[in-house]
C-alpha cells in the first residue's frame, strides 16, 4: 500500500445493516489521490445515469486523502461526494473540524454509505476493533447539530446532520464540530438515508515515507505561516470576514440580491468590526490548524458560538440589506444548528425578498428588515409553510414562481459572495465549475481581483486561463485533502508589502496580465516539488508531486466531474451565469454585464473540449480518464 493511506475502504449498507472493509484501490489513489477525486471516481463507476439523488441508489461517500491524519496545517478536512439533489449533477463538499483525523485514526480512507435505513439510525465505527455498530437514532432525530454532537460526546469524531438534512432541505450540509460540508445538499442525501450521524474512533498512526523530512519541513512551514500577512495576520486577526471592506470598495460585495456591489453599511458587518465589537475573545480553528480563521461571538440566549464568516455576512448581511452583525450572527447560528449552507440560504432569502418586492411571492420578509427572518429560517429547516418552497433553493423556486432573471445560481447552486462583474475570471469559474456557482473550487478572484497582485479584472486577458489553473489546483487540494485557504500563502510576504500605487507594482501586474504562455508552460512542467503541499505529499507518499503533476491530476478530476455532469444530462447551456450578471452593469466602465460569451470558447479550448463543451477523446486519453 502507498504510504499515507490507511489502505481500507469501509462499505456500509444501511438497508441490510451490514458492513465490510475492502482494500483501497491503489490505481485510483495514484490517479486521483483521494478525497474528492477518489470519491468522484467511485460515484461515476458505481451509479447509473439518472438516479434519484434522494433515492437509495445514491451513495454517500466520505473521503480522506494522504495528508489527513498528519499534523500538516489545514489538513483536517474530508470530502463528501454524491449526486447533488440541488443541481442534479455532481455533488461534493469539504469540511474541517476533526472528523478527517478521526477517520484516519480509525484506519479508514473512505466510507461508502449505500442504500437507506427504514428508521433513524446512527453508526459508530471502532477502527481498532474493526467494528461497526448500527444504533437506533430516533432519540436524536429532530435535534440540532450542536446538541447532537454534545450528546454523542467528545471521545469520538462525528459527522452529523440537523433537522434541515432530516427534512431534505436541498442545501442541507453535514457538520463536524463547528464546521460544515455545506454545498450541494450532501446533508439532504444523508437525511434521505435516515442517517443522523457517523462517529469514528481509533488509535492508528499514519505511516509516512519520510517522517523526519515531513516533521522538519512542517515546522518550517508553520513558521512561514506565522509570519505570512494572510495566514498569520489578516485571517488570524479578522477571519474571512476581513475581506468585506475590500470587496465593498471594489464593487463586488453582493448587495440587495446582487442588484449592487456596494453596501453603505458594509463596515458594520466586517471582520474588523467583529474583532472590535462582537468577538468574545477565543478564536476557533480546525484540529492542528494554526490559522484560526474561526470567530467566536455572543448570541443572545445561546452564549458563545461560532461567528459568521465572509460568505455569511455578505449573503445574509449586505445581500439582504442588513448591516446588523448581531442579527447575522444569530441567523448563522440557526443555520449551523439546523445544518444548512448559509450561501444557498442567504441567496434564496434574497431571491424571496426580491420576489416579495415585485409582488410575486409572499414569504413575509423584506430587504433591510430583520423581522421574520429567524422564523423563516426555522421554517425552511423544517419545511414548514413557505419555508417548504425556499428549502428547494432559488432555481427550483424560480421554475415554480418565476423570477428566472434574478435567481442567482449556476446549475442550481447559488452564487458565492464575489460578484463576477468585478472579477471576470471568477465569472468563468462560476459558470464552468462542475458543482455550480461556487468560489472554493478555484478562487480565481484572489489572483485576479482581491489579492496583493491583481490584474485588471474587467478586460479579457487571462480570464479564461486563470480558472483552468485554479480549478485544477483546487481539485488537487480537495483530494489531499487540504483547506483551500492554503493557496493564499502562494504570494510571498514581499508581494504583500508592495505599495499598489507604486510603479513597480503596476509593472508587475502588467507582466502578470501578459503571463498566459508562461503560465501554461509552467502548468505542464513535472519537476521537483516546490510548494509546501507538493512536498508534504511527496514526503508522506514517497511519490513525486510537483505543480505539473498536480495540474494533471486536478485536470483529470475536473474532467471526470464534467463527464459525470454530461452523463446526467447537463450541457454547455448550463455553463452560464444568472441573466442579471450577464445583462446588467454595476460599473460605469461597463456597458453590460459579464462577457462570458467571449470567454467560454477560449476556456473550452484550453480545457481540450470541443465547441459543445465536451472533453475530446484525445483529452480523456491524455488524462487517462476511463469512461
Amino acid at each position, binding site marked *: 500500500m502507498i504510504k499515507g493511506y490507511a489502505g481500507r475502504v469501509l462499505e456500509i449498507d444501511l438497508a441490510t445493516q451490514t458492513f465490510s472493509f475492502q482494500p483501497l484501490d491503489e490505481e485510483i489513489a495514484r490517479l486521483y489521490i483521494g478525497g474528492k477525486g477518489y470519491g468522484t471516481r467511485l460515484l461515476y463507476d458505481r451509479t447509473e445515469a439518472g438516479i434519484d439523488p434522494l433515492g437509495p441508489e445514491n451513495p454517500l461517500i466520505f473521503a480522506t486523502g494522504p495528508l489527513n491524519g498528519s499534523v500538516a496545517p489545514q489538513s483536517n478536512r474530508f470530502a463528501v461526494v454524491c449526486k447533488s439533489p440541488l443541481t442534479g449533477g455532481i455533488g461534493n463538499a469539504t469540511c474541517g473540524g476533526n472528523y478527517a483525523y478521526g477517520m484516519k485514526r480509525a484506519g479508514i480512507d473512505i466510507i461508502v454509505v449505500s442504500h437507506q435505513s427504514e428508521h433513524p439510525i446512527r453508526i459508530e465505527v471502532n477502527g481498532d476493533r474493526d467494528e461497526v455498530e448500527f444504533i437506533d437514532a430516533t432519540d436524536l432525530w429532530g435535534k440540532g447539530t450542536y446538541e447532537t454532537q454534545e450528546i454523542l460526546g467528545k471521545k469520538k469524531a462525528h459527522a452529523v446532520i440537523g433537522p434541515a438534512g432530516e427534512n431534505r432541505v436541498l442545501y442541507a450540509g453535514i457538520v463536524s464540530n463547528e464546521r460544515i460540508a455545506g454545498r450541494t445538499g450532501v446533508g439532504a442525501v444523508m437525511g434521505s438515508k435516515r442517517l443522523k450521524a457517523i462517529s469514528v474512533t481509533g488509535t492508528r498512526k499514519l505511516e509516512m515515507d519520510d517522517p523526519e523530512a515531513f516533521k522538519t519541513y512542517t515546522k518550517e512551514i508553520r513558521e512561514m505561516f506565522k509570519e505570512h500577512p494572510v495566514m498569520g495576520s489578516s485571517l488570524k486577526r479578522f477571519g474571512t470576514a476581513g475581506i468585506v471592506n475590500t470587496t465593498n*470598495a471594489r464593487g463586488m460585495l453582493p448587495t440587495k440580491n446582487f442588484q449592487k456591489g456596494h453596501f453603505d453599511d458594509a463596515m458594520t458587518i466586517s471582520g*474588523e468590526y467583529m474583532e472590535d465589537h462582537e468577538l468574545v475573545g477565543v478564536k476557533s480553528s480546525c484540529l492542528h490548524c494554526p490559522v484560526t480563521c474561526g470567530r467566536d461571538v455572543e448570541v443572545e440566549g445561546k452564549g458563545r458560538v461560532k461567528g459568521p464568516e465572509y460568505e455569511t455576512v455578505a449573503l445574509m448581511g449586505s445581500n439582504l440589506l442588513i448591516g446588523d452583525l448581531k442579527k447575522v450572527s444569530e441567523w448563522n447560528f440557526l443555520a449551523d444548528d439546523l445544518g444548512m449552507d448559509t450561501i444557498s440560504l442567504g441567496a434564496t432569502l434574497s431571491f424571496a425578498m426580491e420576489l416579495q418586492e415585485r409582488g410575486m411571492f409572499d414569504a413575509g420578509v423584506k430587504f433591510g428588515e430583520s423581522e421574520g427572518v429567524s422564523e423563516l429560517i426555522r421554517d425552511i429547516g423544517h419545511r414548514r409553510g413557505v419555508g417548504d418552497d425556499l428549502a428547494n433553493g432559488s432555481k427550483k423556486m424560480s421554475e415554480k414562481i418565476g423570477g428566472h432573471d434574478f435567481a442567482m445560481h449556476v446549475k442550481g447552486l447559488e452564487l458565492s459572495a464575489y460578484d463576477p462583474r468585478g472579477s471576470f475570471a471568477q465569472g468563468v469559474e462560476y459558470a464552468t465549475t462542475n458543482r455550480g456557482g461556487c468560489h472554493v473550487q478555484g478562487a480565481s478572484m484572489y489572483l485576479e481581483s482581491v489579492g496583493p497582485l491583481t490584474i485588471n479584472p474587467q478586460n479579457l486577458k487571462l480570464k479564461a486561463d486563470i480558472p483552468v489553473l485554479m480549478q485544477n489546483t483546487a481539485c488537487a487540494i480537495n483530494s489531499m485533502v487540504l483547506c483551500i485557504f492554503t493557496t493564499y500563502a502562494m504570494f510571498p510576504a514581499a508581494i504583500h508589502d508592495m505599495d499598489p500605487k507604486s510603479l513597480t507594482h503596476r509593472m508587475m501586474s502588467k507582466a502578470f496580465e501578459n503571463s498566459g504562455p508562461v503560465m501554461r508552460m509552467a502548468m505542464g512542467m513535472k519537476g521537483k516539488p516546490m510548494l509546501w503541499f507538493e512536498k508534504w505529499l511527496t514526503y508522506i507518499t514517497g511519490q513525486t508531486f510537483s505543480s505539473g503533476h498536480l495540474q494533471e491530476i486536478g485536470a483529470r478530476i475536473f474532467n471526470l466531474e464534467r463527464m459525470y455532469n454530461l452523463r446526467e444530462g447537463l450541457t454547455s447551456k448550463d455553463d452560464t451565469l444568472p441573466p442579471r450578471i450577464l445583462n446588467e452593469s454595476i460599473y460605469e466602465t461597463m456597458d453590460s454585464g459579464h462577457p462570458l460569451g467571449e470567454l467560454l470558447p477560449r476556456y473550452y479550448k484550453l480545457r481540450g473540449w470541443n465547441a459543445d463543451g465536451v472533453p475530446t477523446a484525445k483529452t480523456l486519453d491524455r488524462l487517462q480518464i476511463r469512461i
Partner: protein
Amino acid sequence: MSIQVELTYDMSKALGQRSFELETAATVREVVAQTAARFAEGDDFDKLVRCTAVAVNGVLVNYRKGLKTKLVDGDLVGFVKSSAGG
C-alpha cells in the same frame, strides 16, 4: 461638486469616521492629499495608506490613470487593502 470618500477600517478608526465628503477634488491625487490633511501627525497616515490601493466607483485607478485619474461630481473614492476571504 461632491466626492464621497470611504476609508479602510484602520484609517476610519484613526480618523473616527468611516467616510466623508469632499466639495472639490479634480483628481485622485487631490483626494489622497486632502485625506492625508485630515489625519493628525501621530496617526501616521503614510503607514496607514502604504499598502492601500484606490478605487473610483469600484474600479482600481491602477487600471485607469493612476493618481492622475480625473473625478466627476458624485464619484465614490475608496481606499482598498488587498485581502483574502472565504
